[in-house]
């Protein structure tokens, strides 16, 4: 994902002299080096200093530039939290904060590097939009949106590197603020919603269900704020089971937002939410190991779905 961001940013930066990138001692991948060589004055490295990284993007935006801030997700959002809130969001400036390693992607590096509550925090700040692309192609589309939009600050939550392309054949295009079907199965009773790199697991879950004759639709809710409430209402109205899989704290994120909408519309659908626990894991290992320590495995998801088949909340059709 970070390479896709870098390539797209490099391409756009050649055309738009207002695009700048401010990093905090984290080496941006691939093409950002080309951007840096070509436009050294539009690449700023504040050093290990995230507060000034965010603060200065505010000032640059106030002077008409289009800055992006870039570092590891925890350091992009938590360390400079008040700069994000006051300088960017309160003043509603068009700055993009790129956070690398959303969720527990920096698995072995431990709790200090796990961005598990970032979605909740970012969604809680007025004016701040939140995008969580699921694959390199969505990263590219999201970056293009961020580079031209004038609506205010955006937190773009990325994974690391090596994520597979999942959306090439998606029936829907990427549109900021609109959820997107990656797989639309007519007649399916189950719809799986996910965002970010864990879409791969969501896709595996959809495949596994399809193999057992319970095909499921698959949706990327890449824009978590503003949330596509109309799109979600339509899904909640037409599927008997909606499954949210996300690599964010269960306390907040997409799952609880979907539940709120479902309650408000009195949806007759069964809702499942698979997310990170409200815990700091002290398991160090691969990304999959750390997800497993939060209970996020394909086996667990399928087992939980087996226990409560698609039925609707009021048990219509349930045994």
């Amino acid at each position, binding site marked *: 994902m970070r390479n896709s961001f870098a390539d797209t940013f490099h391409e756009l930066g050649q055309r738009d002299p207002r695009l700048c990138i401010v990093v905090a001692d984290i080496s941006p991948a691939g093409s950002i080096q080309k951007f840096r060589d070509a436009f050294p004055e539009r690449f700023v490295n*504040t050093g290990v200093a995230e507060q000034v990284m965010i603060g200065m993007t505010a000032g640059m935006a106030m002077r008409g530039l289009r800055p992006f801030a870039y570092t590891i997700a925890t350091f992009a959002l938590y360390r400079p939290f008040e700069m994000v809130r006051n300088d960017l969001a309160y003043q509603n400036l068009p700055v993009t904060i790129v956070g690398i390693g959303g969720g527990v992607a920096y698995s072995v590096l431990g709790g200090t*590097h796990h961005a598990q509550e970032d979605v909740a925090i970012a969604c809680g700040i007025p004016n701040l939009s939140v995008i969580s692309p699921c694959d390199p192609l969505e990263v590219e589309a999201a970056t293009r949106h961020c580079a031209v939009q004038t609506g205010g600050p955006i937190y773009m939550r990325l994974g690391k590197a090596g994520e597979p392309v999942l959306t090439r054949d998606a029936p829907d295009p990427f549109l900021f603020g609109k959820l997107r079907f990656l797989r639309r199965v007519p007649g399916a009773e189950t719809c799986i919603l996910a965002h970010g790199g864990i879409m791969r697991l969501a896709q595996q879950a959809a495949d596994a269900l399809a193999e057992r004759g319970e095909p499921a639709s698959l949706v990327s809710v890449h824009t978590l704020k503003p949330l596509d409430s109309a799109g979600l209402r339509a899904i909640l109205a037409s599927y008997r089971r909606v499954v949210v899989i996300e690599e964010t704290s269960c306390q907040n994120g997409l799952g609880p937002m979907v539940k709120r909408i479902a309650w408000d519309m009195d949806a007759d659908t069964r809702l499942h939410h698979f997310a990170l626990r409200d815990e700091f894991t002290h398991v160090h290992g691969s990304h999959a190991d750390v997800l497993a320590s939060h209970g996020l495995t394909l086996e667990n998801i399928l087992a939980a779905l087996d226990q409560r088949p698609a039925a609707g909340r009021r048990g219509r059709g349930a045994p």
Partner: protein
Amino acid sequence: MLVSDTDTPTASVPPRDGRFDVAAARRRCLELRHRILDLSRNLAAMHIAPAFSCLEMVDAIYFGLMRRDRNGASSDTFILSKGHGCMAQYAVLERLGVLSSEDLELNCKPEGRLGGHPDYGTPGIEASTGSLGHGLAIGLGMAYADKLKREDRRVFVLVGDGEMQEGSVWEALMMAANLGLDNLVCLLDLNDFQGLGRTSETHPHFYPIVDKIAAFGWEVASVDGHDAGALVDAFQSRRGGVPFFVVGRTIKGRGVAFMENVPIWHYRSPDAEEYRIAKAGLREVGSGGGTAPGGGS
């Protein structure tokens, strides 16, 4: 050009209090470097150069500065604020018997209890670090609590030079002398490198560093950070009465010629061939002097 296998002893070795054996420290650090290199074989990536940079400082803190009772227990505290250098600390803690060899073998494995940064609650680890710029304020709080409780404890905090760009470090630096914390010691691993390159090139106004810290009311010493004896001496000959800061001039990746001052070794494990070359080239390291401009001051 720097030589990696400097085994020439420092010209004059000032008298010490007898507890700290410089020759033994050099032998120990050589063994620790071997151990860390061996362990790097288990991991796809390891912060190896940051560990080699601060190895002598960590060794000197544990073996020369922290006071121990007859059972080896210490009431003094060490916080590795640049937590990514933790292989140095893990290797020393193994040496002290605080961590087991199995702990180190299982580093970053789900069955083990060590990870890529020090985790509070693990034996020997006094604070969870990894996000830079936290350790000094935590250490300051401990030192203040020890003062309040009239306990004779010292707190040692090791920070990186890149880390010192965090505003929080300077907030703690400004506060320490206000609180009269002469029981707080901050050691700086001044290797003139950070994640994105050489500090003197990317952030030249980081320097002079000694004057800046002294201006905040600290007593400051600047020593060769690979000379553990010099570190211990600097501490023992301090005037005292105020917080103490030691600038250790170091070389990032010290001890393995091809890693020294080469940015990619910030976070990388050697492959089989690199491992072989590194192992074959390891020698005792007694000094280095660092590469920061103007000796880091």
